């Protein structure tokens, strides 16, 4: 018996404090305003929100921090900021601005001690590691960095277990093969890690409809991340949740 519910997490790509990926909402004054969009998703029943700063750099750091401040003032559900975080000071700055969690990606591969020290200093719960995977020719899953361009040489399963050992609180597992395809999550790796790893797994990459979300949960995902299926206006989060509840998936309605 468990009272813990499965989470749906919309993801907003931001650049210079503006939402950049095609969001198509009705009755929204400003589609580019991350605060307004996130608030809309909270109203629809989002369990958390993830912001990915896609062109994060030292130059636009102040803009990103200001966005996080504004989101924190408005949102009353947890939110994560990812993109370009390299040091403990970076992590601290975003947590101090009001982010509940930060997501590390390339940094976790290059400097795993940032994961370990971040978890020790700020608590595992606020250190999410984004792991981008692709299926190699031998059928095993490799870990990629720099937005999927660089093969790190690491394999997904042992790397994710290592991250759990280092103190990561959660894994945002993105299938680079599926991302943007709309054909559903990669069930093999989602299921394997969802069952085998001692920390929560967020499935990401490929969701286009509520059936895809259901399948990921049935396979063992603790949460799902989706962008296009909600941004396009094709599905509302509350609709997706009602469908999932009907399918026997425990969600917060």
């Amino acid at each position, binding site marked *: *018996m*468990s*009272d813990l*519910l499965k989470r749906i997490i919309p993801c907003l790509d931001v650049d210079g404090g503006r939402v950049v990926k095609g969001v198509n909402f009705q009755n929204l004054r400003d589609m580019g305003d991350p605060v307004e969009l996130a608030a809309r998703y909270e109203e629809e029943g989002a369990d958390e929100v993830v912001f990915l700063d896609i062109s994060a750099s030292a130059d636009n750091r102040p803009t990103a921090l200001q966005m996080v401040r504004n989101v924190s003032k408005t949102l009353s*559900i*947890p939110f994560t900021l990812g993109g370009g975080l390299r040091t403990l000071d970076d992590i601290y700055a975003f*947590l101090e601005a009001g982010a509940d969690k930060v997501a590390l990606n390339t940094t976790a591969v290059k400097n795993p001690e940032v994961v370990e020290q971040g978890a020790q200093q700020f608590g595992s719960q606020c250190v999410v590691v984004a792991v981008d995977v692709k299926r190699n020719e031998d059928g095993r899953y490799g870990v990629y960095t720099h937005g999927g361009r660089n093969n790190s040489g690491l394999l997904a399963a042992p790397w994710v277990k290592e991250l759990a050992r280092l103190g990561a*609180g959660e894994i945002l597992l993105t299938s680079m093969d599926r991302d943007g395809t709309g054909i559903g999550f990669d069930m093999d790796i989602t299921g394997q890690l969802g069952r085998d790893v001692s920390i929560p797994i967020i499935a990401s990459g490929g969701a286009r409809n509520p059936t895809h979300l259901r399948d990921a949960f049935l396979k063992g995902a603790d949460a799902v991340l989706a962008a296009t299926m909600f941004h396009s206006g094709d599905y509302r989060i509350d609709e997706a949740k009602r469908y999932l509840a009907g399918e026997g998936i425990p969600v917060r309605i």
Partner: protein
Amino acid sequence: MTIGIVNPKSGNITSICDTLERLNRPYRVLSKPDLDGIGQILLPGQGRFGAVMKYLRENGWIQPLNDWVGADKPLLGICVGMQILFQESEEDPGEPGLGLFNGKITRLKSPKQPMMGWATVHWSEEGYPPGAAYFVNSYVAVSKDHSIAHTQYGEQFSAAVKRGATRAFQFHPEKSGAWGKELLEQCLIS
């Protein structure tokens, strides 16, 4: 009356401050027990058990907190702010808690750790909104001492305690959406 947010500096209190702003509740962040004009003490849910207790001890909070609760003035604890009200914790053995509630905080025997996400809160006392709260924790109170709500993840634990004007939640009402807002409206002085 002003709400006094205790700031152990072991985690950030931005979220709880932003929440009180949204709820239009006047508050002051307290590093020391300067309680003039304070009508309710809020122990926020950031940091680990030992770090928070060490901060309270070194900054002269223990006696004022005991006096506060002894006088039955309003206090609200969140997450680790609930856990330190118990006697001790497996998170930091050897570091005594405030001991306002009986029992020890133990590691949650759950499928995954930390417990992270929304979970249903089962109230055993009337007057609280039904619903789900956002939890982030690896340790819990399984003690039923003054428990007014429970939640199960792996094992059943106390999701909320109440004794006189002292209330505490294992979950984060400030991160629990509209439901959390409603609950806080009810539990914060105005």
